[in-house]
């Protein structure tokens, strides 16, 4: 259980997040969605401890503020939006850094992680020569290595992903979302900041919809991804349709034609 | 290098030659004036190496150079196998001197000074170190006489003003202030230092040069690396407007002769005096 309550984040005088409460359960994929500037990434950064915040943040009941970076690193791994590398590390070396910082990663684990993200055979390539999407998947492999087992000693491990599919093509988007889904299905916890509402609808168990530094609503995709909430959050009309084959998954289409018409 | 090693080994093995060599001093001479005095005492054949500033007489330049007098390397000095080091005050670094003293090499320091007495003292100290006290006394007396005679002739009731230019770098003039050897030689030659307001060698502004209005510009021959031509002086915004430049009173004298305060300083006084008051 990842829990944040009465969370406040300020940049100087401006409150980015104000008295927010958020929670995510192990065994679930929790998505954070919302328009640009709504505070999605800020929320993720606050709960990873990357930026200063006030309020309570706990991981399975333990206050993360009093935990050391190395303790936290064994319980949760964080995938940043993008990573630039200072030196010519190979893909293999990058993936192993993830665990070597705390212990040591066997080469075979690194190879398994790479093949899981579709980068088998890329071990010897220099990270900086990879495409943006390949770099993002290489980072995912590194993050997976850090908390490879979804649960350990009956405690869940956590993946915190900041826009994990933003640089990927549709095939790899689905593949990466399946990896996250599997992790949750095996007892781990996943929190992902998402832009793509359709992928969110397809893969998430819980959706936190943000606007203006607050969570408008957090519930199942069926209850959150509705015309009313989404229009309120994004400020533009959206059309939600539900395909006949699977009544649970909403399809969200922006009604482009109406955008130019005065209301 | 190889042959030297061999010769040391051979000398040590034979023994008798080693004793014969011991009688002869092997001198490293540090400082232009020190070298000059050793030559003047007729003991130049004892010098086995000299420092970078030892450029007079010309034969001295043929000797091995152990580097700049304030940045000596201990092994460099040891490599010429000296028995005696005669060094001007301020030679170093101290670490090197310590090692040399530890190697049981006699080390004699020669003080600097800008008066006839100081020059005489230099000569006497070097003479003593060379076991040539009598010759040194004669030389010292002669040099003192030269200097005093030259200074007396040179003395002037209304001294003209002299600007000593150490170098001109990018139109910036480095001039001599008080407590410099240039200041001393100017006074002895019956002149007055145009830049009496500061100590040491300092960059001076063009306005200060114009204000000082020197009657003579004094420089070292090939001083400061770049020779400065008369045309450059006349074209210079500061130097060009001085009475010295207008009248073409620009003198260039060898640096060691002019500023060394050694056996030839009497000549230096005369040369500067001639440049100031001749015609």
């Amino acid at each position, binding site marked *: 259980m990842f829990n944040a309550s009465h969370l406040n984040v300020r940049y100087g005088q401006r409150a980015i997040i104000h008295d927010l409460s958020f929670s995510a359960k192990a065994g679930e994929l929790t998505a954070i969605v919302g328009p640009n500037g709504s505070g999605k990434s800020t929320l993720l950064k606050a709960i*990873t401890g*990357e930026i*200063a915040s006030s309020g309570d943040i706990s991981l399975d009941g333990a206050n993360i503020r009093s935990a050391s*970076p*190395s303790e*936290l*690193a064994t319980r949760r*791994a*964080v995938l940043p939006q993008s*990573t*630039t*590398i*200072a*030196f*010519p*590390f*190979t893909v*293999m*070396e*990058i993936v*192993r850094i*993830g665990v070597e*910082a*705390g212990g040591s990663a066997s*080469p075979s684990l*690194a190879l398994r992680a790479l093949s899981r993200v579709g980068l088998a055979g890329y071990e010897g390539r220099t990270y*900086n020569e990879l495409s943006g999407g390949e770099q993002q998947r290489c980072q995912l492999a590194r993050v997976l290595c*850090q908390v490879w087992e979804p649960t350990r000693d009956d405690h869940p491990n956590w993946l915190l992903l900041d826009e994990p599919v933003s640089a990927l093509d549709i095939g790899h988007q689905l593949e990466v979302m399946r990896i996250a889904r599997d992790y949750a299905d095996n007892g781990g916890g996943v929190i992902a900041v998402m832009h793509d509402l359709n992928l969110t609808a397809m893969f998430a168990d819980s959706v936190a919809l943000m606007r203006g530094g607050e969570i408008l609503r957090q519930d199942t995709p069926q209850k959150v991804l509705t015309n009313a909430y989404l229009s309120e959050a994004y400020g533009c009309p959206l059309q939600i349709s539900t395909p006949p084959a699977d009544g649970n998954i909403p399809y969200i289409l922006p009604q482009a034609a109406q955008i130019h018409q005065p209301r | *290098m*190889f042959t*030297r*090693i061999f010769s*040391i080994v051979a000398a*040590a093995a034979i023994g008798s030659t080693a004793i014969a060599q011991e009688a002869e001093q092997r001198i490293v001479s540090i400082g232009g004036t020190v070298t000059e005095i050793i030559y003047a005492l007729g003991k130049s054949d004892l010098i086995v*190496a000299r420092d*970078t500033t030892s450029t007079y007489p010309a034969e001295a330049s043929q000797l091995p*150079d*152990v*580097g*700049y007098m*304030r*940045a000596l*390397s*201990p*092994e*460099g*000095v*040891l*490599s*010429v*196998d000296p028995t005696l080091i005669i060094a001007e005050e301020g030679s170093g*670094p*101290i*670490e090197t001197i*310590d*090692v040399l003293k*530890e*190697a049981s090499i006699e080390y004699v320091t020669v003080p600097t000074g800008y008066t006839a007495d100081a020059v005489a003292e230099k000569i006497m100290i070097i003479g003593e170190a060379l076991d040539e006290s009598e010759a040194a006394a004669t030389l010292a007396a002669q040099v003192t006489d030269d200097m005093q005679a030259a200074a007396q002739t040179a003395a002037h009731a209304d001294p003209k003003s002299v600007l000593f230019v150490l170098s001109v770098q990018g139109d910036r003039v480095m001039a001599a202030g008080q407590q410099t050897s240039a200041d001393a030689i100017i006074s002895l030659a019956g002149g007055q230092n145009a830049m009496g307001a500061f100590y*040491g*060698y300092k960059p001076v502004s063009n306005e200060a040069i114009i204000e000082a209005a020197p009657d003579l510009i004094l420089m070292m021959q090939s001083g400061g690396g770049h020779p400065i031509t008369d045309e450059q002086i006349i074209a210079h915004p500061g130097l060009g407007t001085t009475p010295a430049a207008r009248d073409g009173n620009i003198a260039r004298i060898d640096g060691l002769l002019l500023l060394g305060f050694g056996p030839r300083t009497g000549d230096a006084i005369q040369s500067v005096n001639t440049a100031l008051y001749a015609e």
Partner: protein
Amino acid sequence: MAEISQNIPKAHFAGDRQQRGRYVTIALSIALVFTAINSLGVGATGLPIWEILARFLNGIGLTHTESIVLFDIRMPRMVMGVLVGSALSVSGTIMQGLFRNPLADPGLIGVGSGAALGAIIAIVLGSYLPAQLAATFGPSLVPFAAFVGAWATTLLLYRVSTRGGRTSVAVMLLAGIAVGALSGAVSGILIYIADDSELRDLTFWGMGSLAGATWTKVWVAAPMILIALLSAPALARALNAMALGETSAMHMGINVQRMKRFAILAVAGATGAAVAISGGIGFVGIVVPHLLRISIGPDHRYLLPASALLGAIILLIADMVARVAVAPSDLPIGIITAILGGPFFLYILLRNRGMLEA
């Protein structure tokens, strides 16, 4: 380096250069021992190493002068070369890792400008010290002042750039520029009042040299440098993680702030001590890590020890040239590292452009 890298056997897994790192480290260790022994036989007086060995084997021994040359000149000089070379290279490697920039050097944390200011103060104002105090310090005054200057500047920069328990690398860089300008100005004032011979001393100090090596200097500098060298491996994993950025390093379990403080203090100690006893020796700290990254990759677990070894080797070789190039005079070693290192570095850069472009 290029030759070495091609003869290294393939690793068990593609992209894993650990085995290569081990081989290169072993090769460099052997090379360092060889270079160090050889350097005992190089100098203006001749006396090559085989001659020394032959003398001892035949029980002849050395003459008084020869033993001074060997034990009081060449040996402290060799030890100082190893200490200074490894301190400068390891410090360069740590700084580049910490600032995530292959051009970073200890100058960024104010060591250079601080040490220079300290040295200038000692050289120019040393003569104004009360005689008793001057006698106590003796020849250690300039090294001592340089070391204090380096530390004081680094601590000032660290304090300025640390707020709320976080050190901002960007603030440190900018503050370093400001402090550098300030100490440059103070140095300028002192240079203005310096006399001719003091100016020459300053110039020679700036070019660096091992010619003034003494056992005293070695004993004083060795602890600072050894502490940094021995603790450097503890930074390796953290520096690797830092290559992915400060926040990623933190998420991977690195206590980034503690690691930064540790790295900055270690570098200030080692470089401060090295610069204090040898003056300014440039270039080694930037070139050595580059050469090694091309050969064994950027993994700091191998890069740090290999840097120490290669830095020591390069400085010993440069110093051997310094001793004999213009014998019986001695060239400042900074000139040699630049003359030999500059073109070689350019050649390596041109040959390995692809490896370096990030």
